[in-house]
């Protein structure tokens, strides 16, 4: 177990539900905090009687949802001006960006719901959702559903495996890296198809 995770667990044991809320909130906002592992640990501690499982699920969900919403609103209010200022004007105005916006809007449920399972995809989708025309009501509804589901899955694993949670967390992390590599490979092999779709989109919207 690395030093970072050990410190997070000590923080969790000292400050309990406040610590869980804070870590979930900060991780959803973009900082590298082991919120998933801490959630699994909190659920494992609940199986030992040290925490209350429904409270763990409620607090972690609230923390995640609050962080996601703050990320969405920061992107909505300041996203484009900041990106243009730091030199991303060409990307914002590029046809590929318009195509990405339209694809996310068409498949908003899939993108928002399933991105909750990984911190990098969560942060990316929160930012893109804030930059695109996805309405806040729709984003909030899908975000709540996705976060509660994700928290329940992690909490169930932690609660069921109890003291064995570090082994499960380690294997989860290894499989996540394999999945991310597979997705990147998929994008590379699908890049020609994606370019075709971008060109078709541009021709329809000229």
């Amino acid at each position, binding site marked *: *177990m690395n030093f970072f995770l*050990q*410190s997070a*667990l*000590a923080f969790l*044991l*000292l400050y309990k539900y406040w610590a869980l809320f804070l870590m979930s909130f900060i991780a959803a906002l973009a900082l590298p905090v082991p919120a998933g592992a801490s959630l699994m640990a909190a659920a*494992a*501690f609940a*199986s*030992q*009687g*040290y925490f209350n499982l429904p409270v763990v699920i409620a607090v972690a969900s609230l923390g995640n949802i609050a962080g996601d919403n703050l990320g969405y609103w920061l992107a909505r209010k300041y996203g484009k001006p900041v990106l243009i200022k730091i030199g991303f004007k060409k990307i914002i105005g590029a046809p590929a960006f318009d195509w990405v916006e339209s694809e996310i809007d068409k498949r908003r449920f899939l993108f928002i719901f399933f991105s909750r399972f990984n911190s990098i995809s969560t942060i990316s989708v929160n930012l893109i959702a804030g930059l695109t025309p996805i309405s806040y009501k729709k984003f909030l509804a899908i975000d709540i559903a996705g976060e509660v589901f994700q928290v329940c899955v992690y909490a169930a694993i932690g*609660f*069921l*495996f*109890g*003291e*064995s949670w570090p*082994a*499960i967390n*380690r*294997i989860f992390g*290894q*499989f996540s*890296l*394999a999945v991310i*590599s*597979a997705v*990147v*490979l998929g994008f*590379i092999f699908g890049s020609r198809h994606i370019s075709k779709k971008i060109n078709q989109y541009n021709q329809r919207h000229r």
Partner: protein
Amino acid sequence: MDNPQPNQPSSWVKKTSIIIGIIFCIFLVTTLLATADFFTSVRKGDLRMRGLQKDRTAAIPQNIEPWMTFDYVNRVFGLPPDYVKEKLTIDDPRYPMVEIKSYAKKHSIDPLEFTGKVRETVMEYRLP
């Protein structure tokens, strides 16, 4: 008559092939490691669903770690609140809401050695 030069792969195709190769290796290695780790953990009994066992609170003293607090140890092992405090003569006002490691460092004790003493103290309490 000159023989035509065989088509050389462009540098872009070479670079892309190398990147694809590296990512594929990462995918293969991580999948194999994760699968091996999974089966090793199953064989060692690390992946038992302890949460489904009847006595879910039957924690193992050997699993006490330096990052744990005395409060957590007391509650999970069913110890009287001041048992560890008296046995190890702990005089920290933060007790029991203090990490084992933090207490050890404050009193210039090796954290791992002190954690071992906490484990022994818990095991003594559990002896019939």
